[in-house]
């Protein structure tokens, strides 16, 4: 199903400035490439985003490798007790969930600039299309995360 339109990224700014009762933004640091953990991050991020909570996801270390452009699900996902069930049952694909969170809610995804440099990757050419908002350094993400709640997966 194609959905047009996206809400403007205003509630995070309101939350930071304290102008309203907007929920605290949720910051997720994803640093594991294990399928279960990517799936959990995608579930948390997408459900929070569609529940009117601003979400920012920082993907770092080997967690960024499954997001390489052009990979099939079989190449992308590995590891975890439930990996085989995720792949054989009708469980939503993690990349699709992240995409739905961005499309239906207020969500941003950032790729760790260190990993991009080490891999000689660019967001626009080496990562999954239409998912990442750009590169980001750890210091900037941690500074932003002071305005909300940070979970690390």
């Amino acid at each position: 199903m194609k959905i047009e339109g996206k809400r403007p990224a205003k509630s995070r700014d309101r939350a930071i400035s304290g102008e309203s009762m907007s929920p605290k933004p949720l910051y997720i640091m994803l640093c594991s490439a294990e399928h279960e953990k990517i799936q959990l991050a995608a579930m948390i991020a997408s459900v929070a985003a569609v529940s009117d909570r601003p979400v920012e996801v920082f993907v770092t270390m080997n967690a960024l490798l499954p997001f390489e452009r052009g990979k099939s699900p079989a190449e992308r996902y590995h590891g975890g007790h439930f990996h085989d069930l995720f792949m054989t049952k009708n469980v939503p694909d993690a990349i699709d969930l992240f995409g739905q969170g961005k499309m239906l809610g207020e969500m941003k995804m950032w790729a760790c600039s260190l990993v991009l440099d080490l891999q000689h990757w660019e967001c626009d050419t080496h990562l999954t299309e239409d998912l990442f908002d750009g590169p980001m350094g750890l210091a900037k993400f941690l500074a932003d995360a002071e305005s909300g709640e940070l979970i690390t997966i």
Partner: protein
Amino acid sequence: MAERQTIDARGAFCPGPLMELIAALKLASVGDEVDILSSDKGSATDIPAWCAKVGHQVVETGERDGYWSVVVRKAK
């Protein structure tokens, strides 16, 4: 005039049915209703909780033959 549509999300695992409901509500008009059918046990509690959080109205919830039907009215 308000319309009701049925989304058959049976067989989809969490959070698939919720995301399908949200996508349908996004396209619906205020007052329209979406009947989401789900075999995911969590949907019976997740969908009403999500509606309470974001301000949509649960019209009815019922367990059918091995699945749940949750009717949601778009309220805003």
